[in-house]
């Protein structure tokens, strides 16, 4: 009898607790940076090395490319079959140019099977909305600008002081992980 009362106390205590339900269609979940959603594909970066198609455990990637006028390989078609893709991330892992990446797009439901065959254009469009490519590019440009500004400042400072001392590099931001 006592145990039952204790249990009743526990459930009663929950009445006023904060509710944990996520109001899904209105409130989307916030995914962490590494979240493995549906791919994005940046054709400009692809060198048609075929590594992603080879590593894919379910063989869901098919691609073809041709050489352009500059004898560089250019991607022509790039299809992922999301009927069998298991979003394992191995293709992203092997890609030498980061042409293929995962996004935070996770909504795959569709009315017909055809919609699961995503081609290059869909994957490219996907990156605009969900991808990190542009954000990364901007961050890179930003970092480059900052770097340039710093170098400029360091140069000026060096010129002023005319001493061989090295400027303090802002390296804190670059160190990941923890001790």
């Amino acid at each position, binding site marked *: 009898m006592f145990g039952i009362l204790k*249990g*009743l106390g526990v*459930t*009663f205590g*929950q009445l006023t607790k904060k*509710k*944990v*339900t996520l*109001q899904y269609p209105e409130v989307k979940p916030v995914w962490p940076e590494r979240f493995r959603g549906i791919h994005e594909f940046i054709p400009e970066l692809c060198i048609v090395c075929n590594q992603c198609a080879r590593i894919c455990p379910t063989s869901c990637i098919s691609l073809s490319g041709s050489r352009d006028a500059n004898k560089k390989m250019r991607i022509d078609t790039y299809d992922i079959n999301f009927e069998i893709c298991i979003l394992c991330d191995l293709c992203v892992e092997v890609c030498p140019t980061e042409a293929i990446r995962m996004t935070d797009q996770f909504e795959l439901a569709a009315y017909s099977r055809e919609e699961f065959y995503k081609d290059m254009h869909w994957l490219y469009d996907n990156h605009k909305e969900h991808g990190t490519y542009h954000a990364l590019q901007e961050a890179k440009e930003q970092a480059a600008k900052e770097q340039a500004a710093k170098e400029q400042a360091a140069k000026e400072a060096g010129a002023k002081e005319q001493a061989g001392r090295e400027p303090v590099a802002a390296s804190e931001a670059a160190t990941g992980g923890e001790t």
Partner: protein
Amino acid sequence: MFSWQTQPLTGLNFIGMVIGAVVVLAILLLVVMYLIFFLRKVVAWMQNRIGPNRVGPWGLFQSMADVLKLLLKEDIVPAKADRALFLVAPIIAFVPAFTVLAVIPYTAGHIFTAGLNIGVLFYIALSSITILGIVLGGWASNNKYSLVGGLRSAAQMISYEIPLGMSVLGVVMLAGSLNLTTIVQQQATDRFGWYIIPQIIGFVVFMIAAVAELNQTPFDLPEAESELVAGYFTEYTGFRFAFYMLTEFVYLFAISALATTLFLGGWLGPWLPSWLWFAIKTSAVIFFMFWLRATMPRLRVDKLMGFAWKVLIPVALFNILLTGLLSLLV
């Protein structure tokens, strides 16, 4: 206040009575509908969820949408089912559920409720008819899960009907009447106050037996979804399924109202209007049942019968004896 009980049964009064009954029925249907909503909200809050919140403001129309959906669904009769019984069983279960509500005094004026001299017995007698509907439904479905569910509910409900009736006897002895209105009135003048105080043993037995009668957790073996899918109404769809659901919730309301009337002083209470007191007390009892539902695991089926016959009935008998002794001595 107008009360049809004291009026002669003329044509006009008869029509008034019918209209009144229909109005009461409509109100009760609404109450029952919101009972489902209340259940889902309470259980959801206890489980840190939000509960229904999509249909209408705060999800208030959710139950209505559910009922509407059930009414619009196809009424499927399995090919191998016993067609006649399958069709009639939900009605057998459903009709007594609403009939028992006729004797419950909702307010001090008790408009449109029957001041039957044997109100308590009437309730217990009619609610046993519902079991027939459940058993027949389980059998007629010609489904093994339904059959086992039906068998279980028959055994369980018959067993728990006895302690339920016995636990009420103490109250009847104190009040000296089987009339529910009289029982409430007696509680106003009783020296112990409401009967929950002198009849606390009876109340506990009543509540346990009531929960068992309602097939509520922890006594929800007839419809244990992890064992029997949905028990006796596994094969039912559409409005026949709705009938069973409604039956269950009408009884939930009815038995809470009965507990309120018998033990908690019915509509008695200061300041507030009597119907509000009745509503508050009934809601409290219902809330308690939902609370149990959110907390308890299911009872073991082989301990179920033993509990009724070896624990509840002796305790209820002891309570009757005690009440008799006390009313003789005190």
